């Protein structure tokens, strides 16, 4: 019995291995919906997490400065598909000078805005560093003052005893 069922399982395993390897994504593999993204609540983040988030978002903005459309033109039609693609690309090329003039101003604005944000981000970091140093110094001065008053107290007590 073992051999027969072993063979049957091996055959089925191979069949399902091929099926799962050809599955496009997780939903198809698991046969159900999956939540892939959770919205980030910025108010919940700590300072250093916000710092990371700012850096990440800034890099996304930087990637998106150029807002000219670059559509991926394809067609699923078997025979006339290539002709449709060629025609759409041609139309797109003809109108590009007009659309580009519209977007040039926007691109310049995006560029300036990203640079401004980056400058603000750098200034914020420097200010934070300064604040941290000041807090550290304040703490050290406080502790040294406490040490001094302790020493002074013991001297006074000694004088009084004398």
């Amino acid at each position, binding site marked *: *019995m073992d051999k027969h069922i072993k063979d049957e399982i091996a055959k089925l395993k191979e069949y399902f291995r091929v099926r799962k390897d050809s599955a496009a994504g997780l939903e198809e593999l698991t046969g*159900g919906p999956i939540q892939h993204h959770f919205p980030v609540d910025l108010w919940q983040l700590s300072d*250093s997490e916000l710092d990371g988030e700012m850096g990440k978002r800034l890099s996304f903005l930087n990637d998106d400065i150029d807002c000219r459309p670059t559509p991926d033109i394809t067609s699923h039609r078997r025979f006339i598909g290539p002709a449709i693609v060629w025609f759409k690309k041609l139309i797109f090329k003809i109108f590009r000078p007009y659309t580009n003039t519209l977007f040039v101003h926007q691109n310049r604005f995006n560029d300036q805005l990203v640079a401004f944000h980056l400058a603000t981000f750098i200034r914020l970091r420097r200010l934070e560093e300064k604040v941290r140093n000041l807090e550290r110094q304040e703490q050290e001065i406080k502790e040294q003052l406490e040490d001094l008053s302790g020493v002074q107290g013991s001297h006074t007590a000694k004088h009084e005893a004398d």
Partner: protein
Amino acid sequence: MKPIEARIENFFHVLGRRDPAARSQIQPLAQAVARKSGAQAAYNLLLRSEVVAGWRQPSLALYDHTLHLIGGGEKYGCTMAAALQDKFDVTLIAHRPVTLANLMEWYDLDLSRCRVKILPLDFFDKKDQGLINPDLVSDRSENPFLAVSRESGNYDFFINNSMLEMVFPLSNISLFVCHFPERRKGSYFYVQHYRHLIYNSRYTAEWIEKKWRLSPSHHIYPPVDMEPTVGQILPKENIILSVARFESGGSKQQAEMIAAFARLRAKAPREMQSWKLILCGGSASPNPYLEKIRGLLKTQPNLPVELKINIPLNELKKLYARSALFWHFCGLQQSNPAHVEHFGMSTVEAMQNQCLPIVFDGGGQREIVENGISGYRFSNIRQLLDLTLQAIRDPGQRERTSRAAQLRGGNFTRAIFTEKVRDLFGHLAEEYASAAPLAAPAQR
């Protein structure tokens, strides 16, 4: 028609008894499972049936995206693999070249019955000097770790030892080892799909609940094996030791240690005359923080501070054995919980060598050092200075507390870790090889 779960259970019963009826059931059952829950579920059913029938031992994959680098988390995973290799067919999944010989040498482990599988990830090869940095992944890109998810579905058990929440587990039994929840729930977050969530300290568990709103299920402290053998016990010298990586961001705070040591010498010059501070740790090169430390020491040439960078293990053991006191600052004046020590393996290493720990009162250190019994915890530099001077002025008390520290350090050994791991996986394997339905994941 019975519900599919009952049909599966019945099939496993029949299969376990070597009943010929099993043969007629398998194909329709696998097809029904595939229709209901996808091809992966049908494949998983077949995988488990081989183990239930007793034809092979369960297969287990342990994934770590930084397996090629030496680290505490990687040691945790490899020690797990070493503990399980007799009962499981273990595969270690990495992205960059690494051999079993490397891992065995780095962590002093026997991994001879394991194998390594390298799974390249093109996404990162083109970016950021090839570093596998999960922060580069966002909802704007495809999930590069989908390849790991697919691979996980080829094993009975899958352990994600990477803290990489972007790997969706497809195996029958999945475990997520969390050393600390560094990232928030965001893009491609799948930890809630793991059947078991292992954590390394109560501090980590607390933050898993706060950040991810998930309840971790199994607590296993990391393995620490720095206990000296008889020949390694040396007389104590007047050394304050720090063992911590020289992080480029300075989170281990070696610069603050130098400043504190200078203050200590100014405060009690006579008593501190024979004491020195040794800062020991690993460092990548180039490291601007290490250069900053070197610069600091150049400005204070009379301060007895020594740097020991990337020293071999036997030299480190000798240092622990010779040093009387141990300092650990990680977490001091930090607002980010990820920058506080999640556990503190080096503190335990010091304790196992009767090196009295004086550590920052936060994170996992609170679980290791019992304040005033097996060491001391401080909240600010002033307290640190007072506690250190107290320990220096009273050698008798220092020796007693050091002995208590050594006893305490014995609670975090490799033997205890191995026992806990074998216990947990023994139960899981037993359940898996039975006909009973698998226990549902803990309520999250």
